[in-house]
């Protein structure tokens, strides 16, 4: 918890420092932080802080109710810390090979969190997660290899030929065919981690079966780390091959993800799976935004990443509260939350509205930016299709969550002994919602400059 706060403070300081300074780099490019990494670091560190705060209450309640042993709780916090630090480290390296190593290591650490409950269902989810993601990331490694090969004509040392800023600076003299293959493999490989359809199949299982704060980490931090890797590859590919090929690929995967996410959200059932499919949808939206391109599209993609991360963290933390009280993850088993458990109910209601892109919240602004980018950059048909899918998503998602928060239901027993744990649950939800609201009404000047600087670094 303290570690998370320190890392958040460090990330904010780093981002603030990065805005006006050249990229920080050391150890032959193995350490490299520019504004783009700074922006993603801020997102991941923020989510980690919220999830770490939520973990304290969640885990103490699980331990009190005897569902977790003391050993499992210790395991949870060890792997949680490992997972968070590996993700932060993967954002801080400029070496694409090391990026693979750290992303794969974070997969393993988070798989341990998914399988922590040790029951058949969670082990099944963890197995599916670790085998699909490992295969995916290995494909990304093959892509990295082809990128390395594409640069074999450059006069750089072998370390530099894998280091992002050097590759980006020399992008014009990369060999085009291996680069094309490299981008394809990287999008498929890291896209598996991002949860782009059709490589998303591990995602709903892992999100549904992990302890809720860990689900928040998966959805709001891990997926973004994968997206960060794709953006790095995108920048190099755009510089050499032009925008058509990468944009068509990202639009294809993006629209497939939005479609799959929306279709599965129509089904009413496990509410954590609902949130997970919503993550698939939102990652699709970010990919579409990258595919629209231009300043607006990239700006929207980054802003949406931040907004979605906060909203999803709030939703999963709130859902952890609900599933602990009602001992079910089925939406049909929960009703009348707003009267029975006002805090969780309110968070779930506001979080749902936020994640669906309702006006006062940040996601409205970022989705609007993305749609505007679509109208400006490509034909009007694509953004219209996107809007249509978002409307379906709104109805499907709200139908389930409104059913949970309204109506009259029996008040469940309070699983928290003592006020401290209770406050540990309320504070992260409140902080997340306030941040979302603030981002919807006003984008801080510092954040605006940071995003604009990140765009300059990749265009």
């Amino acid at each position: 918890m303290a570690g998370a706060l320190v890392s958040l403070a460090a990330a904010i300081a780093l981002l603030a420092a990065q805005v006006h300074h050249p990229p920080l780099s050391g150890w032959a490019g193995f350490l490299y932080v520019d504004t783009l990494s700074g922006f993603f670091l801020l997102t991941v560190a923020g989510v980690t802080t919220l999830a770490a705060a939520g973990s304290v209450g969640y885990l103490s309640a699980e331990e009190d109710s005897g569902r977790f042993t003391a050993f499992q709780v210790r395991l949870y916090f060890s792997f949680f810390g490992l997972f968070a630090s590996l993700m932060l480290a993967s954002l801080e390296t400029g070496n694409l090979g090391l990026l693979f190593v750290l992303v794969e290591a974070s997969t393993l650490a988070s798989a341990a969190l998914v399988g922590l409950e040790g029951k058949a269902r969670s082990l099944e989810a963890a197995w599916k997660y670790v085998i699909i993601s490992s295969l995916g990331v290995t494909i990304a490694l093959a892509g990295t290899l082809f990128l390395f090969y594409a640069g074999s004509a450059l006069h750089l040392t072998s370390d530099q030929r894998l280091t992002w800023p050097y590759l980006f600076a020399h992008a014009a003299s990369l060999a085009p065919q291996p680069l094309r293959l490299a981008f394809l493999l990287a999008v498929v490989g890291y896209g598996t981690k991002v949860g782009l359809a059709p490589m998303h199949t591990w995602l709903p299982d892992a999100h549904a079966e992990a302890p809720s704060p860990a689900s928040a980490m998966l959805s709001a931090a891990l997926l973004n780390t994968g997206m960060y890797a794709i953006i790095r590859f995108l920048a190099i590919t755009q510089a050499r091959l032009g925008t058509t090929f990468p944009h068509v690929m990202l639009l294809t995967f993006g629209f497939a993800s939005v479609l799959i996410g929306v279709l599965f959200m129509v089904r009413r059932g496990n509410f954590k799976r609902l949130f997970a499919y919503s993550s698939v949808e939102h990652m699709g939206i970010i990919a579409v935004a990258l595919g629209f391109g231009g300043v607006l599209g990239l700006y929207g993609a980054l802003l949406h990443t931040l907004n979605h991360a906060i909203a999803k963290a709030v939703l999963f933390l709130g859902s952890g509260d609900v599933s602990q009280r009602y001992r079910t993850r089925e939406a049909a088993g929960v009703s009348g939350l707003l009267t029975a458990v006002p805090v969780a109910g309110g968070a779930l209601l506001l979080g749902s509205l936020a994640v669906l892109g309702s006006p006062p919240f940040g996601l409205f602004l970022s989705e609007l930016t993305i749609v505007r980018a679509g109208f400006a950059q490509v034909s009007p048909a694509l953004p219209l299709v996107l809007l249509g899918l978002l409307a379906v998503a709104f109805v499907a998602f709200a139908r389930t969550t409104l059913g949970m928060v309204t109506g009259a239901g029996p008040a469940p027993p309070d699983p928290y002994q003592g006020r401290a744990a209770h406050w540990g649950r309320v504070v992260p939800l409140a902080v997340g919602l306030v941040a979302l609201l603030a981002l919807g009404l006003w984008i801080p000047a510092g954040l605006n400059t940071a995003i604009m600087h990140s765009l300059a670094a990749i265009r």
Partner: protein
Amino acid sequence: MEKLAATSAAGVLLDLSGVLILLLAFACLGSKLFNRYVAYYGAQSVVLSFAAGVAAWTFHSVELWILAALTFAIKGIGIPLATRRLLLRRLALARDTAISTGLSTSLIAGGALTAFAYLVTRPQLLPHGVVAAAVVPLSTAVILLGALAMVVRRHTVAQLIGWLIVENGVFLGAITLVATFPFIVEAGIFLDIAAGVLIMLVFVSGITRELAEASAAELRGLRG
């Protein structure tokens, strides 16, 4: 940039190891016994360490010698031994009954994938003269064959072996195609694989404890 012509003795040896690795991947695809999967994987890793040794000898690289030794010790001996001891013997696994297609069908599909690998990585599409050019399509084919093994096999142990074959394919590319791949990255990849196998062994034993049959075909609880 150091060059390795396909006609030199080292180039021929590398090509030969690449072909052997591909053949062993096919052998694994055409087998039905868990024991064989592990044996073929072990043999493939030994050939891989030999290839790494050849590359190390050609480039006079200490780091590649270390990698060759690590490959031999961990992939050639360690992982097969651990899989045999901890999974096959303890869970009394013998015949793999959870294969979704017939063996001949998967072999034909494997042949098609190999042809495809040659199609997309034709030597003339790649920058010239870096390494023995035959290795690129070979390692791509091994990657595809490993992925195919993961798709047609439903048993968790078989999927684990399939992933390891994919990894070997990538490594073949990394060692020979780009002999100068940074050492720290290769070492990190090694660490990942070792940790990955360890955690997968835990999951497989856990799944077997919870379900009578550790076949991914039985993993039907989570859908939709």
